[in-house]
């Protein structure tokens, strides 16, 4: 297992390649609409700081929890998120979506900071809570036009890549003092989440 430390890097590289491959479609006139839809879907989850932080935290926490959460969460998360997205498309009433996301940032950051290891079902439940809100927020904004496939693919792959980036950050634990560094990162995320919550409250 000499090279296993590089595994997340490799996974990330491959995922990035696959995600970027459709951009080649941009070069073609007939693929223009698809390419533009993909890019706007890809950029959408990157636009909100709360979503990015919570998503990063999910990856970092997964890395901290280790096996099996580290690989199970990236496989399960997109599906749970898609169910949230479906609720968003159908406009199922879900109260205070942005508040839910902000709470996720604070809670997930706190879990990393405390280095807590709840049982898998409990951490999966907590992550699912965020996944549903995250999917809902973006599902509600899915465009009702012919680029839906490209847009959805962009949105899903961007979310997945932030997740993988979080796992990549989580591998800082392999460095000396890495575990403390990761916990400090969790505290920073939780603190930012509190600031965002305050901002929401004032609005």
């Amino acid at each position, binding site marked *: *297992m*000499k*090279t*296993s430390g*590089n*595994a*997340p890097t*490799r*996974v990330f*590289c*491959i*995922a990035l*390649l*696959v995600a970027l*491959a*459709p951009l*080649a*479609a941009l*070069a*073609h006139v*007939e*693929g223009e609409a*698809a390419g533009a839809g*993909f890019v706007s879907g890809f950029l959408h989850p990157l636009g909100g700081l709360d979503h990015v932080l919570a998503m990063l935290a999910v990856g970092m926490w997964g890395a901290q929890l280790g096996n099996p959460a580290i*690989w199970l969460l*990236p*496989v*399960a*998360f*997109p*599906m749970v*998120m*898609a*169910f949230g*997205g*479906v609720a968003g*498309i*159908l406009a199922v009433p879900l109260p205070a979506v942005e508040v839910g996301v902000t709470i996720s940032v604070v809670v997930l950051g706190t879990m990393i900071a405390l280095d807590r290891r709840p049982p898998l079902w409990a951490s999966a439940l907590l992550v699912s809570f965020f996944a549903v809100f995250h999917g809902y927020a973006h*599902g509600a904004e*899915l465009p*009702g*036009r*012919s680029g*839906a*496939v*490209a847009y*959805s*693919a962009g*949105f*899903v*792959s961007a979310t*997945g890549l932030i997740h*993988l980036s979080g796992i990549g950050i989580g591998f800082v634990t392999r460095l000396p003092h890495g575990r403390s560094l990761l916990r400090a990162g969790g505290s920073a995320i939780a603190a930012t989440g509190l600031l965002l919550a305050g901002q929401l409250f004032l609005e």
Partner: protein
Amino acid sequence: MSPAPGSRAARHRVIAALLLPLGSCCLLPASALAHGSATLGDFYAGMFHPLLHFELLLPLLALALWSGQLGSSHAWRLPLVFVAAALLGAGLGMSQRGIELSGSLLPIPMLVLGLLVAARGRLPAWLALGLVALFGVQHGHANTYAAEQQIQRPLLLLAGFGTGIGLVLFHVVTRVARHRAFWLQTAVRVLGSWIAATGLLVLVLEWTGNR
């Protein structure tokens, strides 16, 4: 297991395998343009249409990943059935006399195959082959049914279509089937999950008439 999984050589092979189709995607249309030949036009149109449209590319990719995961005889049987069925479907689509398959069924293969990949699911052989044949006909039909441009040489278009999807399937299936490293198998499952999630979102968008 040649070379040792996780070794530098294995890593380079996988990266090269992923870069190759990407590079060829960039280069081939340019060479087609350079020829400026109408004869090549239909061949390349058939070849690149399924690779440039997400609704066609994603189910194709999911099928390739699943076949590779299953390995052994499935690794070549499922792609072969798919290509044969897709050619049949493409012929039906071009004849314009075939059944009008609803476009809103397109995300179903994405969802089903993506879920199978994510769960590393296995199906009885008859069900797997039947399902893939069905999806293949639909894939081929969708590829040619709404062809905007005038098709001058339908057989050439079919040849290009078969070559294009065949190459993608062969390339992805062999890599996935050969490299059993844990990180690669996990990456495959993650990709399957992404495709399934996209399929679910699009399916609901279609059914609610939001499109």
